[in-house]
């Protein structure tokens, strides 16, 4: 009997939290023809940790996850799980549960049969198998749907069954490959929170790949931002947002203003105000400072040096676009009930809050990706 069989059979009836293992991806390289999907990618995940990989399309995040799953072979590098090198171990022997972006329930099986599939392969006795499947379906709150086929379940329900199926085998590592991207916004938010709750409950080391920064920031212990096959920054969601290590991270995670400033040592003069700078900023001279919309305070001021372009109600918050006298477009976050007080053409004063910001060279060519610098609406 394999260690996996032992653990599953012993664990039937209750998931024991905290049985996660450490995962290391060491210097992984993977090319598809001329494209380097992974370029010396290295990532260490602590036992029981939930790490999200975030990045634009083609940055290599899914490739990294598939290499860890054994579904892709790395050209070079090493994959270690629990201290053991599993680089050449086939997928079927890696003991990892995976939830895919596409619906992956076996169409000819009911939800229960799907959950039992991995246990059957491990030759778990029928009674224990059924008990374990019931426990997992309870965990994802789908006990009432145990006898339904995939085509009788909604997208969200299918992904929850897929999660139960992946967890039923008590995998060493849980891999989530954009499991929420096919769902509508409301179901996505619900299932996102459910995934986090379940992960905390079972304590399995988890790698979650997504291109949705809100998802990544909401559920992960640490978020890794990837670019061109490598990690730009790996940090807690708050640190990633508040202290981006590179212009790319600042641009990619959250909305960012790029405002001209004069840097002197560890501070920059921005919109007439001195703000502290993050490590890694340029040290002297003209620069662009990356400032979050919520780091800019807006006050109505007939003598102000900026003009409102538009103000929008966004539900829980509001956003305001303004143009400074020097022609820069600035986006600021405002209270939702303040939106009505600003009209296009109103004069305002913009004051940066004293939050540390990243300053980059004024001629920096970093592309503003999907969430890059704001542009004023037409």
């Amino acid at each position, binding site marked *: 009997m394999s260690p*996996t069989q032992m653990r599953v059979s012993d664990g039937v009836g209750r998931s024991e939290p905290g049985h996660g293992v450490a995962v290391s991806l060491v210097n992984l390289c993977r090319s598809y023809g001329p494209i380097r999907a992974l370029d010396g990618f290295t990532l260490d995940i602590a036992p029981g940790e939930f790490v999200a990989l975030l990045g634009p399309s083609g940055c290599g995040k899914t490739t990294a996850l598939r290499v860890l*799953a*054994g*579904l892709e072979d790395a050209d070079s590098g090493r994959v270690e799980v629990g201290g053991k090198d599993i680089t050449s171990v*086939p*997928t*079927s*022997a*890696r*003991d*990892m*549960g*995976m939830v*895919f972006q*596409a*619906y*992956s329930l*076996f*169409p*000819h099986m009911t939800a229960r049969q799907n959950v039992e*599939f*991995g246990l059957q*392969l*491990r030759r778990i006795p029928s009674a224990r198998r059924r008990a374990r499947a019931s426990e997992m379906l309870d965990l994802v709150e789908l006990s009432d749907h145990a006898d339904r086929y995939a*085509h*009788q*379940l*909604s*997208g*969200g*329900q299918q992904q929850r069954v*897929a999660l139960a*199926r*992946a967890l039923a*085998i008590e995998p060493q590592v849980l*891999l989530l490959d954009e499991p929420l991207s096919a*769902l*509508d916004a409301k*179901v996505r938010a619900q299932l996102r929170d459910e995934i986090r709750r379940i992960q905390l409950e079972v304590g399995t080391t988890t790698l979650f790949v997504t291109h949705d920064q809100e998802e990544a920031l909401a559920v992960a212990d640490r978020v890794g931002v990837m670019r061109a096959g490598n990690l730009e920054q790996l940090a807690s969601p708050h640190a990633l947002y508040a202290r981006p290590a590179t212009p790319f991270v600042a641009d990619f995670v959250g909305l960012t203003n790029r405002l001209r400033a004069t840097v002197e040592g560890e501070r920059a003069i921005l919109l007439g105000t001195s703000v502290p700078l993050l490590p890694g900023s340029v040290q002297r001279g003209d620069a662009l400072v990356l400032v979050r919309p919520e780091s800019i305070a807006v006050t109505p001021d007939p003598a102000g040096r900026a003009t409102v372009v538009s103000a929008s109600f966004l539900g829980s918050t509001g956003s305001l676009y303004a143009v400074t006298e020097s022609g820069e477009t600035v986006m600021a976050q405002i209270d939702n009930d303040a939106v009505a007080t600003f009209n296009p053409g109103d004069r305002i004063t913009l004051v940066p809050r004293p939050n540390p910001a990243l300053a980059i060279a004024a001629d920096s060519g970093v592309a503003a990706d999907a969430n890059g610098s704001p542009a004023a609406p037409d």
Partner: protein
Amino acid sequence: MSLRATRRRRQSIFRWVVVTVIGLFFALPIVSMVEFTTRAPGGGRTLDTWATLFDVNVIDADYPELKTGILASAGLTLLTVAIMLVMLVPTMTWVRLRLPGMRRTVEFICLLPLTIPAIVLVVGLAPVYAWVAYFLGESSLWLAFAYVVLVLPYAYRALDAGLSAIDVKTLAEAARSLGAGWPTVMWRVILPNVRTAVLSASFLSVALVLGEFTIASLFSRDNLQVAINLLGKRDASIAIAAALAALVLAFIVLFAMSFVGARRRSPRPEES
């Protein structure tokens, strides 16, 4: 009557005329065969020919070539279907999973036999079958190798439709991540989900093998059609009855194909 109603009525009449003409086209030869096989000597009707056809002892004693042909065709059918499935299903699945760039090439190769006349195939296969006879003997069963080539286009189309209806890659990867090896993936995940396509490919192959004459005849091997042809020179009535029985059997098999494997599906629930 409005213009619209008149047009609808004309269209309806046209549809029925087309259906009737096509029905007659197919039914007339069959009715003629029935008429011929039920003629009694000296006029009138009799079912003697049909009674003979279904009397195993009489067939065994008086029409041994028919029995040989039926047995050979039955064996050829089973062998052809088995070889076709064992060869084609894993290959097509593998191409989808690992070699998607080869899909067009494989499709081209599988459809190629459609463009090659049977007589040309025989010319090409003759030297091959000389070796087959040398190594494996003269059994008619070895015609199955040639028949697999003949059924490739039809089987490929049926299986391709089935594989296209499911996400083979994701299902296979999901099964593998749960601990399944490739044989388990094929047997427990892919095959059950292309069951209808496998049945379609099998039935089409059965129909084709049961009706094949040219290759068997030119290679001087036995099968049902060769037997019917031989029998026709001695006893036209029983030959026509056997041909009609084979035809009806093929019809039944193809008709069953549209029902077997069909699953009733309930509507998909709303997202909740």
